[in-house]
């Protein structure tokens, strides 16, 4: 291993920065050089990707029908009210 090579222990702390595209070009290059030579770290990065894929398959939380009905009842009242003074415009 050459002196300025990234250690595996450092790489695992940079995975998120890497996946988020937040590594400076030189660090990104070192990251990718390490991956090219280290199948263990390839597995590690793959596992983080699997976590992201799996998390995206978690069903989003839904409001209970009763709570939704309460909001919809309130909606009828709000909509007939005069708008508040102007602020928070988008």
């Amino acid at each position: 291993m050459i002196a300025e090579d990234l250690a595996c222990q450092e790489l695992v702390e940079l995975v998120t920065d890497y996946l988020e595209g937040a590594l400076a070009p030189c660090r990104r290059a070192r990251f990718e050089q390490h991956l090219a030579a280290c199948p263990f770290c390839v597995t590690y990065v793959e596992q983080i990707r699997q976590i992201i894929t799996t998390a995206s398959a978690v069903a989003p939380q839904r409001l209970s029908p009763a709570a939704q009905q309460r909001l919809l009842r309130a909606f009828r009242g709000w909509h007939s009210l005069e708008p508040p003074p102007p602020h928070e415009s988008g």
Partner: protein
Amino acid sequence: MEATEQRSESTATIDSQSDAEAASTACLGGDKALVEALRSGCEASFAVLIDRHQASMLRVAEFYVADRAAAEDVVQETWMAVIRGIDRFDGRSSIKTWMFRILTNRAKTMGQRAARVVPVSAILGGAAAEDCAVDPARFFDARHPQWPGHWCNPPTAWALGPDDQVATNEAIEVVLLAITGLPAMQRTVITLRDVECWTSREVCIALALTETNQRVLLHRARSRVRRRLEQHEDEAADRLEA
């Protein structure tokens, strides 16, 4: 669009045919159609908005305020402000961004009132052992002559299923449990980013985090969830061997 304009005169009920059409048009037509429908008082469009955002709104509100009840108050106030202010929404941002800006402003105000705003530095500071992505014992010592800081106990690829691109129900269950058990800020960030697929920018704005702090929280969250799934996979492999 046509459906929403047609029904602007009548009273909205979620069961009516035209309302259902309006809502589905609003869903498909994106923000513009949704906003038109809301302005006309279309209740089904409001139901669409609730369905899409209520859970995330509560999550973001809980990031700022003392408890669930206070968060629910903030969300309720936000919905009212959204409905009453919808005529002033000018479409420069997405309706989601606009709504969450209102929510965040209110939640911050209430959080300050309750003196509950925790400085992020208090959460990010100090690198405790559990904040390491991987147990340091799995790497060779920094003084190792040949492999300092390299794996001595490397990860093994998971057999998550026939197709790794599709998560199995079991893995989903483990990941969900792991997320539920995370410290609050990490849980909020990973849920918005990875479960609800928000962009980092959306998360930073809604939670008033810098990009760096958002990444630190996301990193710790993903690392912990990976450790939890690894533990699960190792146990499953042991059972197979036994």
